[in-house]
């Protein structure tokens, strides 16, 4: 069974990229695409301030902040869980606010606000109290979402003290933990929030 308006013959033109060829209607941008292919923009110089350090490097405009951190600056503590803003694993702070590095183009942060990642959280080779609380409350299992959870929690605490556990839960709703360490995560944040750190 095929969808209406889509004959078997048309189905053959499904391409690898999934491009379903438009039927010549407005919006078909084949021409624009071929122009782009000829005039491919060069790499640009991008300057970011990451964990207090100025980093300058060359990248294409399409590189996300997440890939720039991981593949160009080799700061792999920030994780890629979905690459589409649906899991929170890539949470970093930009200008002190928690954001998703996978949905930010690195070039857009060129000479922008300071970026903080998990690698920059602990001062003087120590451990940030929230990192210690995550270990103490067993707020992690596989550890993959953990840097994102911690950076998100730092952002949450900077936004103001959560009123109660439900406020912590909702405040951490953007960080999926598939291992299900949520209770520990809430407890770890509660312990820091109550202690008045951050």
């Amino acid at each position, binding site marked *: 069974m095929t969808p209406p*308006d889509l004959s078997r013959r048309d189905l053959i033109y499904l391409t690898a990229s999934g491009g379903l060829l*438009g039927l010549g*209607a407005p919006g078909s941008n084949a021409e624009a695409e071929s122009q782009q292919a000829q005039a491919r923009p060069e790499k640009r110089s991008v300057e970011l301030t990451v964990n207090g350090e100025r980093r300058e490097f060359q990248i294409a405009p399409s590189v996300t902040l997440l890939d720039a951190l991981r593949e160009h600056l080799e700061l792999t503590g920030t994780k890629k869980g979905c690459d589409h*803003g649906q899991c929170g694993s890539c949470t970093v702070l930009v200008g002190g606010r928690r954001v998703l590095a996978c949905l930010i183009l690195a070039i*857009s942060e060129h000479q922008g606000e300071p970026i903080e990642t998990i690698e920059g959280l602990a001062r003087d080779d120590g451990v940030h109290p929230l990192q210690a609380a995550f270990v103490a409350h067993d707020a992690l299992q596989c550890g993959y979402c953990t840097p994102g959870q911690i950076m*998100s929690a730092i952002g949450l605490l900077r936004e103001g003290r959560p009123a109660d556990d439900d406020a912590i839960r909702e405040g951490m709703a953007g960080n999926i933990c598939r291992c299900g360490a949520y209770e520990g995560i809430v407890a770890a944040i509660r312990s820091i929030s109550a202690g008045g750190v951050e």
Partner: protein
Amino acid sequence: MTPFDYVRAGSMREAVELRSRSPNAAFLAGGTTLTDLMKGGVEKPSLLVDIRRVPDLDYINVSSGKASLGALTKNSDLATDPALMKAAPMLTQAIAAGASPQIRNMATLGGNLLQRTRCPYFRNQAFACNKRSPGSGCAALTGYDRGHAVLEGSSQCVATHPSDLAVALVALGGEIQAEHISGQRNIPLSEFFRPPGETPWIETSLQRGALIVFVETDLPPEARRSVYLKVRDRASYEFALASAAVGLHQDGSRIIGARIALGGIATRPLRFATAEASLIGRTADEAAFRDAAAIALGEARPGRENGFKVELAKRTLVKALKLASELQQ
């Protein structure tokens, strides 16, 4: 992503001028929709005009009867603005119910209004989708349509508009000011979102290349006694199956003003003037609310798997109205 060029605009005027130079350019603001769709090849702009640093577009001015909101204002700032929370709870509640804290820190007001549908057929290039590839058809019509629209769908498209914020804005009314190379234009919120009809790829009445500058929303008496109620499968971080933005103005228990808009169930955020009118003069009780809900959903035409959304939307609306009527004016 398909390669693209990138420029930064230093002013509003520069932004629209830069964009006017390329037929296939796009504005980059919060990036939460655009970057996502570029990765999937759904959006393929040849030029990104980055407007994140355009000055004077990030503000919240609440005065009596109106609120003026800059297009680059972050969702998180809107959701937590004390004056706005007091003046129009439905608006701040709607924003707080959307996406996640991180995304609300990135997403802007203008971008939120222009965000694209979550229809999986739109987002997966190999499926027929008239929104993405005009004329290719609509795979959702015969497909997995649990999340799709039961109101205002057409034979060309049944995708829902995903915004929560827009539902509240539509309920409140007001207008959008847009900057275009040819000049400024005001668009009433009631005319901003367009039903798919035969041209589902045209989603708003914003001129091609125009930039949203600000939204001036009305703050009618109903705004203060208002509620946004969102229903979804999981407790958070999910788009609405059904949502209701409602406000009531009462004289005692008698309704003298009402605002109703629903989200998650139609191809655009939809206000229901007839249902609102049905409440005027009636006692604020469940019977009145049920009648209004029946009117609002009277034209519903569900697909294969989304029939429940008709009943769910009715109950969401009734419950939201109940919650609003229980508030102190």
